[in-house]
């Protein structure tokens, strides 16, 4: 359980987090979204205990009140380059109180978990960026921590690497781990997260379980043969719940009931209707709405 009570974090005159009160659930993969400077990294550093709140109270504990062990993968990944991959993980394992006799096995397991076994004997400075990201994840998983903090884990990875990273996080989710994940990649958050928080200018603007967030506002998408160029008549009809995105006219909430009207306007204007689809809200839509 992670509890924020009126937490504010200032860096001199800059307010990075502004009066945040929320409780993050245990056993969820919590996605933190927001533009650069929204306070995502500050929030993760606060949970990791690297920085302290300027005001308010932050409590990070397990159900029994014990301070949990924390695995942390920072946004900027730097390792002691002269160490070998396995040596570095052995040191982290030692800090996690893993028995000496078990350290080798634990290190090999964690390397295997992120598909990095081949790099066990390599110096870290010789690893590629993707391998370092995986090493960052491996070190955060060692010792089976109660809480895993991942700050932009897919940053700078190629599509294949991103896919792999998402699979690893899905495995953590299946294992019931509490993961706090900061990301700019909406598809990644949609795929792996079970709880969503959107930050903007240091404040929490949206907070919901992911399943609830995505089913909360179903919508209808009318796909036409070319990007609609709304006529005056259509424009007067359009209000905030009708959006035009590419070749699609999106109808949400009470606008769904207006679909016949919208269809007739589009047909009268000579558009061919390619498809009409009932859809769930996408994370992109939620995000765009929060950011407006």
């Amino acid at each position, binding site marked *: 359980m992670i509890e924020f009570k009126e937490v504010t974090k200032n860096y001199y005159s800059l307010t990075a987090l502004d009066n945040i009160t929320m409780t993050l659930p245990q056993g969820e993969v919590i996605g933190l979204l927001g533009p650069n400077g929204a306070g995502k990294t500050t929030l993760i550093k606060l949970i990791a205990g690297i920085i302290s709140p300027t005001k308010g109270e932050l409590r990070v504990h397990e159900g029994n009140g014990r301070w949990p062990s924390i695995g*942390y993968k920072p946004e900027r990944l730097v*390792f002691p380059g002269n160490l070998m991959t396995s040596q570095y993980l052995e040191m*982290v394992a030692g800090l996690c*109180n893993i028995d000496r006799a078990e350290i080798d096995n634990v290190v090999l397991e964690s390397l295997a978990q992120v598909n990095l076994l081949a790099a066990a004997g390599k110096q870290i400075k010789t690893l590629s960026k993707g391998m370092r990201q995986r090493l960052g994840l491996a070190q955060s998983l060692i010792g089976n921590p109660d809480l895993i903090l991942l700050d932009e884990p897919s940053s700078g990875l190629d599509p294949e690497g991103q896919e792999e990273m998402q699979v690893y996080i899905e495995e953590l989710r299946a294992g019931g781990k509490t993961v706090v994940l900061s990301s700019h990649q909406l598809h990644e958050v949609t795929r792996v997260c079970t709880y969503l928080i959107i930050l903007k200018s240091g404040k929490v603007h949206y907070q919901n379980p992911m399943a609830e967030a995505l089913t909360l506002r179903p919508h209808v998408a009318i796909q036409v043969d070319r990007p609609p160029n709304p006529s005056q008549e259509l424009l007067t009809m359009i209000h905030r719940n009708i959006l035009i995105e590419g070749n699609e006219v999106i109808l949400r909430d009470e606008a769904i009931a207006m679909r016949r009207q919208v269809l007739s306007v589009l047909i009268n204007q000579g558009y061919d209707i390619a498809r009409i689809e009932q859809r769930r809200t996408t994370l992109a839509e939620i995000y765009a709405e929060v950011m407006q």
Partner: protein
Amino acid sequence: MIRAMIRRISILAGYYAKGVFFSLTGLILLIFSLVYWSVFFPPGQGTPDVENYIVLIGAWGAAATFLATLALSGRASRLENYPLITRLPSRVEYLVAVLLGSLILGAFMQLLVAGLALIRGPEITSVQLLAIPPVWLSINLLAAVLACHASDLVTAGWSRVILFGFIAIALVFNSAASGPDSWFSDRFTDLAQLFARLNLMWFSDLSVSMASWAARSPLAPVAQAVSMIFWPFNAISDAIFSGRFTPSQALAPAILVLYGTILFLIAATLFAGKDLEFLE
């Protein structure tokens, strides 16, 4: 639980000490040690006094430990350490690891010089040998904790300026305590003359006023009181040069350890409450 804590501290201390030892900083420390040995204990010079041996190598131990602590705390302030520090139940363990690593590295440099200085060096009696570890260790510990306060790892706000400013003022009072009663007044008079030569008459007049104030004020007793802080150093030095420790002098290393402990508690409090902004 304590065994686990000791293990975590040992792992980090070993990691940082090894990292610094096999770096350019380690090489420089090693070179400094050899230069110190060749300057103060050149093999051609013959047998040095045991007292000089203990004092000079004690001083080098403190200097080497101070430098080693600065190097280790610099290494411990690097960005790569975030994942390590989040694994520890308490930040104090991290600070203890840095101190322990520094003490090990400082002691290595000290023992290196101590060993080399025994070449055609003094014959040390078993009584003298027994006096060496508490003296050297207590001074090294104090040097390590002071270096922690001087480092970016521990310092928070104006803490570094306040601590070392206080030490500087205490040193001035210590000098005054060993001089005549008019010490402060004489120093302000010297300053007034200096300012007058530089044609800074406003400052010169101010210094004259301060000299006159110092002559009227009972600063000498204050200086005597403040200089008590430095008693352990004087006691150790007196004991070494007299060849034996009196019962009260034997307490001096313990008082230095007490100083170190108090300063460590301050350092731990500062470090536990500060935001860690590690740099690449």
